[in-house]
Structures are given as structure tokens and as C-alpha cells.
């Protein structure tokens, strides 16, 4: 165990240097939080079907008394790249269910996995989360058309959140953050099989007695592996040649199939 902790601390020392320093330092809270990822690059290969990411973190200047009483809480979030999203609603038109109304949101993280020490509602007030734009339920999603009624925006925001949760892109793992010692914690984050490609940001939030104290973040790059990346790039950069290749592949497959199977 001591060896493990030692290696974690070493890991932290390496990553700690790269991690962002907290933005504001209120005087009465000397604690700081730092995190290090088990890897800073995840490669998606052909057999990828989701994975877990481990984040190690350390707190400094911890009040030992409070730590023993379990007054410290940590939330770790892995935020995917943000993209505009259109949410469409189906309504009954001439007996058919057709997309009618829609609402566009400007910057929505494609994926958002949360890992916490305890359920969110037990840690802090909803207003705190809203101020921090933290957690899928409290995150601020900016509509493109601000003139829409608050009820409409609320409805589509809820639908967006719900869709993201059912497709596994937004997830919450309660108890995913565990304290290994008063100063050390480990967070497990679930990455969905359809996790987006791009630069993700891991953010850790420290709470004491239900109050937000510090935040830190680190970057994680999710890339397709060589073959997948080449195919994707070819399809976008040399799209015409890619199409011709797809056709040639089909013709050869059909022709070979005929030869192989028509022998008997």
C-alpha cells in the first residue's frame, strides 16, 4: 500500500506541475487541490467499446479534524469538446410524428461524465452548482435564440439533458471519488463507447462543509488510432477519392465473393 501511495505521489508531483493553479484564493481556506490523470491521451482503436479513466488527486493544507469527519467533498468532471446542438421536437401532424419545433444551443459539451464522493444534493446547494455551472442538471446551456420564452428554453434544455443521458454521453458516478487518505483521492470516470474525439478537460472541484473552495483542471486528448484516423481524414480531405475507393472495394468484394462461393 505504501508503495502504491508513493507511486501516486510521484505521479502527482509530475502532473501537479502541469495542472492549472486555482483562480482565486480566499484567505480563510488554505486548502488546495491538484489532479493528475492516469494518461493524458486515449487512443480509440477498432475494438474500443468504452473505457474508464482514473484521476488521482491530492489536497494540501487539509484540516485533519474536518477530514476525519468527512467534511471534504470532491467532484471530478470530464468535459468533452463543446459544439452547437439542435434539439428537435416531434409533434403529430396529419397523424404522423414529424419534427416541428427546434431550439439551438450554442455551446454544449458533447460528453460530460461526473464522479463524486457523495450524491450532489447532499454536498452543496443547487445555487452553488448553478453558479459554477457544474453537473449535468445545473450546467448552463446557452440558447442561440434568447427571445424564446423561458418555458420553451427550459423544456428543450431538459430534453437535451435527457437525450444525452440516455445515449450515455452524460453520466454520473456517485461514490466514484474515494479518499485513499485525508490528502489523497482517486476518481473513476466512465467513458462512453460513443465518446467524442477531441480535447477533453478534467476538472476537480473541492468542497468543504458544503461550500466551494477550489478548482483545478487538466487536459485529456482523445484521438482515433492510426487506421481510424486515416479513414476519417481521407473521408473528409480526399472525399472524392475516398468515394471511388469505397466503390472499388465494393466491386472487388462482390467479384471475389462470386468467385469464392460459386466454385461448388
Amino acid at each position, binding site marked *: 500500500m505504501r508503495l502504491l501511495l508513493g507511486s501516486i505521489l510521484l505521479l502527482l508531483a509530475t502532473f501537479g506541475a502541469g495542472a492549472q493553479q486555482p483562480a482565486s484564493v480566499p484567505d480563510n481556506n488554505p486548502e488546495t487541490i491538484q489532479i493528475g490523470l492516469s494518461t493524458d491521451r486515449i487512443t480509440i482503436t477498432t475494438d474500443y467499446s468504452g473505457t474508464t479513466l482514473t484521476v488521482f488527486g491530492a489536497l494540501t493544507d487539509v484540516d485533519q479534524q474536518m477530514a476525519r469527519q468527512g467534511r471534504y467533498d470532491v467532484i471530478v468532471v470530464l468535459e468533452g469538446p463543446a459544439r452547437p*446542438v*439542435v434539439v428537435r421536437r416531434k409533434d403529430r401532424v396529419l397523424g404522423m410524428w*414529424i419534427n416541428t419545433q427546434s431550439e439551438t444551443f450554442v455551446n454544449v459539451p458533447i460528453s460530460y461524465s461526473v464522479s463524486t464522493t457523495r450524491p450532489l444534493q447532499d454536498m452543496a446547494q443547487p445555487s452553488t452548482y448553478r453558479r459554477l455551472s457544474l453537473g449535468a442538471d445545473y450546467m448552463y446551456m446557452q440558447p442561440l435564440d434568447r427571445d424564446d420564452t423561458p418555458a420553451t428554453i427550459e423544456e428543450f434544455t431538459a430534453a437535451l439533458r435527457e437525450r444525452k443521458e440516455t445515449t450515455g454521453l452524460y453520466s454520473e458516478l456517485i461514490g466514484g471519488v474515494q479518499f485513499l487518505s485525508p490528502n489523497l483521492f482517486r476518481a473513476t470516470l466512465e467513458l462512453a463507447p460513443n465518446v467524442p474525439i477531441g480535447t477533453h478537460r478534467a476538472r476537480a472541484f473541492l468542497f468543504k462543509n458544503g461550500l466551494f473552495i477550489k478548482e483545478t483542471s487538466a487536459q485529456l486528448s482523445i484521438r482515433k488510432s492510426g487506421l481510424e484516423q486515416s479513414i476519417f481524414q481521407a473521408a473528409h480531405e480526399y*472525399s472524392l477519392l475516398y*468515394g471511388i475507393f*469505397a*466503390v472499388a472495394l*465494393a466491386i472487388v468484394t*462482390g467479384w471475389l465473393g462470386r468467385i469464392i462461393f460459386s466454385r461448388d
Partner: protein
Amino acid sequence: MNIYLPIAEMSVNGLVVLIMGAAVGFLSGLFGVGGGFLITPLLIFYNIPPAIAVATGANQVIASSMSGAMAHFRRRTLDFKLAGVLLVGGIFGSSIGIVVFAWLRALGQLDLFISLLYVVFLGSIGGLMLVESVNTLRKSRGGAVVSMKKAGQHHWIHKLPLKMRFRASKLFVSVIPVLALGAGIGFLAAIMGVGGGFIMVPALIYLLKVPTNVVIGTSLFQIIFTAAFTTIVHAATNQTVDVVLAFLLMVGGVAGAQYGAKAGQKLRGEQLRLLLALLVVAVALRLAFDLFVQPGDLYSLGPLGEF
């Protein structure tokens, strides 16, 4: 066996896709159609985004049509000239279809349009085939001799100008309906991700009176080119062809098609048509069900349209 699709950007079970391809291949070998009308809805049911399902479906149709057309080429049951004229129309229709496809996608109505086209075309053609094959079966059971082609019957189509002779099909007909048919099917092929065999075969038989033995080979041969054109244009304009997904489908499909063709030889023509009709109607009903029954989730997410 999980496989990550680089264009769809999702992980699927490779075995399921292979089996899907094999099952459709079996049916396409059995009935002599490309199987696009089955593969695209199946992919959509399997949560592949419709735009990718359509373009990838067109890609896999090439392989199964190629393999089918080769058999007909060997038996000389293929009219190159007729296929050529159909193709000219097909390229034209397909070009328009692709523009409409991109426009509908940006509008958010692509899924609806694809479903509607499927329901209307599969429903009406399947229904007609069902009625026709049941009648034929009933008549042949009564002992009467059945002939598909009524000799000497003149259709309004045969009165059109610009006539051309198609030797292999023993046909002397105006090029206008042939071009129009090609264009219509090309248009549908681009939007529905199908080769159009299930429309082409009955249209050639009932409208142009092409002999049945030439129809399937000619239709398959023509579809190779229409589907190839559709695939290339989809790849170039929408970047929605997933080669990995298409390849899995092709491998399964080509293998399944050979067994399907063997099974098909054991069945009679009208029995085959009845089975195909039932299959087509079943797919249409399934899609109609989705369109008319309240969906489990009223909301859907999409990327911001590029146009």
C-alpha cells in the same frame, strides 16, 4: 466483437452487422434484388444515423449487385443497351436526389422523408405484388395456364416517339419512358440508399414489358452504376459513407447471397414473388408503425446544419 466505425464515430457489434449483411444477402440472392431496401432500415433500427445508413447502404448494394450481375452475365440474361439508357436517366435523377438529400438534412426532415418514401414505395409495390402473386397462385391451383405477358396488348407507352430497338430484350420502345424510369429510380436511390431493384424489376416487367429472364440481370447491372455514382457523390458532398461498416455488410451480404440464390432455385416463380411481397409489405408496415405511433422519445439531437 466490437468494432469502432470511423465515420459514424460509434462502436457497434461487428458480429451483428455481419449477420445483418448475411441475412439481407440471403434474401437478395433469393429474390434477385440488391437488398438496399432492407439494409438501410435495418441500419437505422440499429441506431446508425440515417444519413450514414443511406450512403453506406448504397455502397453495399454495389457489392451484392456486382455479384448477382456476374451470374447473369455468364448466362447472357443481360441487356447492356437497355441498362445503358436506364443509366443515363439514373445519373441525372441521382444528382437531383443528392441535392435534395443535403437540403432535407439541413432542414431536419431527412428521417421523415426517408421513412415516407419507404412506406409509400414499399407499401404500394409490395401490395401490388402481393395481390398479383396471390391471384397467380390461385389461378395456377385452378389448373389454368398463366402467362405473364399478354400478347398484342398496346400500352400508351408504346405510342411515344424516339423509338429504339433493344435486341436482347426483344423490345422496340421509345427512350422517353426508359430515361424517365431511370431518373426516377436514381432519385429514389440517392435519398433512400437503395439500388431501386424492387421498383425497377416490376416497372420493367409491367410497364415496358421486358421479358422476365432479362429483367433481373439488367436491373442488377444498371444498379451497380447508379449505386456507385450515388456512393461517390454522397462521399464527396456529405462525407457519410462509412467504409468499415460497408465492408462488414458486403462480406456478410456476398456470402449470404450465394446461399440465397441456391435456395431460390428450389422455389417456383410465383412463390418467390409472394414471399418477396410479404417481406416488402412487412418492412413498410414496420416503418409506418414508427411514423404513426407516438415515439418513445419526442426529442432528438442533431448537429447544426451546414447550409
